[in-house]
């Protein structure tokens, strides 16, 4: 990519900071990297000699693996730190952890943390580029970018679409990043879920709050279901997953209200039979595994672009 596009971001903290042009740059870069993953030898020397640290304060299987695969395919050296928030409470503070990691001169730190805003906090203590791999219920930009990439691949455009996001909006960083991302690209985002899981003022982020599941899904180009966490002890959000599945799950009959070529998406991991009926999750419109494949390409693009800028 000798004549690569310009990219002005040192860190990837959220979709909030990315313009339409930035998003196009990331998606076209990801598109050009996607083919590397299907080569017999899945490795290019682009990031050789660079150090990527995956600093995960929250359990993650696929996002961490996806970032690690992406970094290794670019020939970066990767290291994983699984710090639990509780261990930092016991002793070292995040600034101390960050300063110590920074003293080892990593080039990129990929951070996931259960507290919103922590990637931004991290940037104050490290020299490395910081990529947010999910911070609390705030943002998950690489997920939104891989969702945009997947929709763009299937529909050939990201503007003028209707995106329905169904489920636990309150606790979902995926929902927030996707609301920002899809609306910024010119699509309409409708959200729906139980009232206990719809955050106050979500319309001010640019989303439309649908009055019913049917209205949300009707004529949608994309139906994205979000993972439901079992209710917390002190905050009774749902009576049961059984009732959730019946009232808010995506069944084949609900899906029939969407456009005939509508895509079914889910950020994973899927509670089968809860957010999505199994025949929908595994049905012909499901692009859930395309999302995973594109996740590697998008993360390769992010690693590349933040380094191109340093």
């Amino acid at each position, binding site marked *: 990519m000798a004549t690569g596009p310009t990219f002005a971001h040192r860190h990837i903290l959220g979709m909030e900071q990315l313009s339409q042009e930035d998003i196009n740059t990331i998606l076209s870069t990801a598109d050009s990297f996607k083919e590397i993953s299907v080569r017999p030898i899945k490795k290019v020397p682009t990031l050789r000699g660079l150090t990527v640290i995956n600093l995960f304060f929250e359990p993650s299987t696929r996002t961490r693996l996806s970032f690690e695969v992406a970094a290794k395919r670019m020939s970066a050296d990767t290291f994983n730190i699984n710090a639990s928030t509780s261990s930092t*409470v016991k002793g070292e*503070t995040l*600034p101390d952890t960050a300063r110590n990691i920074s003293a080892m001169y990593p080039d990129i730190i990929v951070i996931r943390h259960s507290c*919103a805003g*922590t990637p931004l906090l991290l940037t104050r203590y490290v020299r490395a580029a910081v990529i947010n791999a999910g911070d*609390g219920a705030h943002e998950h930009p690489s997920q939104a970018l891989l969702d945009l990439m997947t929709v763009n691949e299937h529909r050939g455009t990201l503007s003028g679409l209707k995106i329905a996001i169904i489920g636990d909006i309150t606790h979902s960083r995926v929902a927030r990043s996707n609301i920002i991302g899809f609306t910024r690209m010119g699509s309409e985002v409708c959200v729906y879920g139980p009232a206990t899981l719809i*955050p*106050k003022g979500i319309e*001010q982020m640019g989303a439309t709050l649908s009055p019913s599941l049917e209205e949300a899904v009707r004529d949608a180009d994309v139906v994205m279901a979000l993972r439901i966490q079992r209710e917390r002890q002190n905050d009774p959000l749902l009576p049961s997953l059984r009732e959730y599945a019946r009232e808010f799950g995506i069944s084949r009959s609900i899906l029939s209200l969407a456009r005939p070529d509508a895509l079914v998406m889910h950020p994973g991991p899927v509670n089968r039979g809860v957010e999505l009926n199994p025949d929908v999750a595994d049905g012909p419109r499901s692009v859930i595994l395309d999302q995973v494949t594109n996740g590697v390409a998008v993360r390769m693009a992010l690693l590349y672009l933040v380094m191109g800028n340093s």
Partner: protein
Amino acid sequence: MNTTWHFINGRIIDPLNKVDRTGNLLVIDGRIAVPDHPVPAGTPEINVSGCWIVPGLTDMHVHLREPGEEYKEDILSGCLAAVSGGFTGVACMPNTRPVNDCAAVTAMITARAAGAAARVYPVGAISLKCEGRQLTEFGELRAAGVVAVSDDGQPVVDSQLMRRALEYASDFNLPVISHSEDPALSTGLMNEGPVSTRLGLKGIPAAAEAVMVYREIALAEFTGTRVHIAHVSTAMAADLIRAAKIRGVRVTAETAPHYFTLTDDAVTGFDTNTKMNPPLRTEQDRQAIQEALADGTIDAIATDHAPHSILEKEVEFDQAANGIIGLETAVSLSLALVRDKVVDERRLIELLAVNPAAILGFDAGHLSAGAVADITVIDPQQQFIYTADQIISKSRNTPFLDWSLQGRAMLTMVGGSIRYNRISAALP
């Protein structure tokens, strides 16, 4: 130490005596002289032209952190911050370590405060260890010097305990100060609304404050006792208090400068110095608080000065402690209310000096002849940038850092003794 002074050319604002005049004020031996009293030979003059001479300000809600958390603040440092901000007296909340829930702790605070720059009025706990289970010995606390009781920092969850506290406190004429938040509703990190939604931070609804404020009003109304609502932050709570006052309920209330200055928009950027309890609210709430200050619904401005070190604040937003320091910015931020014509000068001094003393029940907040000379001199014009190196408090947790502020306390006098001054290097 000299306690005889002659202030000249000041604007004397003394609401309790209905005085607002430009002229001189004589202090002899630590007391305010009668008007036109001859000036004793050799009395040092303090020229305060362009400034206001007002009764010493009382901050009825501060955390001095001593005993137990002296790395954040202690009684001496907190009182120095107070006088530098124009406060001659502070009421310190009991949530120290140990909690001020018995006479021994009160006595320790009082003893330490004897050498402090400002007067210290200890507030005792309502319940042992502020745990909300068993009442403290109000009689013994009162005798030891507490001026009010509160479990501030925690709401009193048990409504029956709160009822009994109100009733029992009336036997000792102790005001009960309520930290009004429903704990089940207030487990979040900031105000619940569009901003918390955008930031993905768990919200605290305005209703968390309102339901508890209404409980306190209902209990005070039923038992015929009085209650003081601390740090009112919402329009809903202000409306409840206004309606209760009209019915004749004996309720008083305070708010803090950050609630009439900032909104939850300030949390954008995850600055932990915008995290406090109750949280910064919406623009609509901010305006409602201003109205409530103007129309008498809210009686006092108190800072809720809550020092925390970087150990508690330079951390993830979720894990950061609640609270900000406020003693050194309160006068400047409150003067904006006068410039914006929300309140007039007289009302401002009622909010900062007259009413806090009246609510806590001590003789202060006026410049009557013969009164102890607790005096604050304020320059309403002086502009300055509030930088970290100016901070007197041990802690620096303030969202107002590097703000350009207008209006400042220039001199603070306690009992005729100058405890802080920005007027002249020739003065103490």
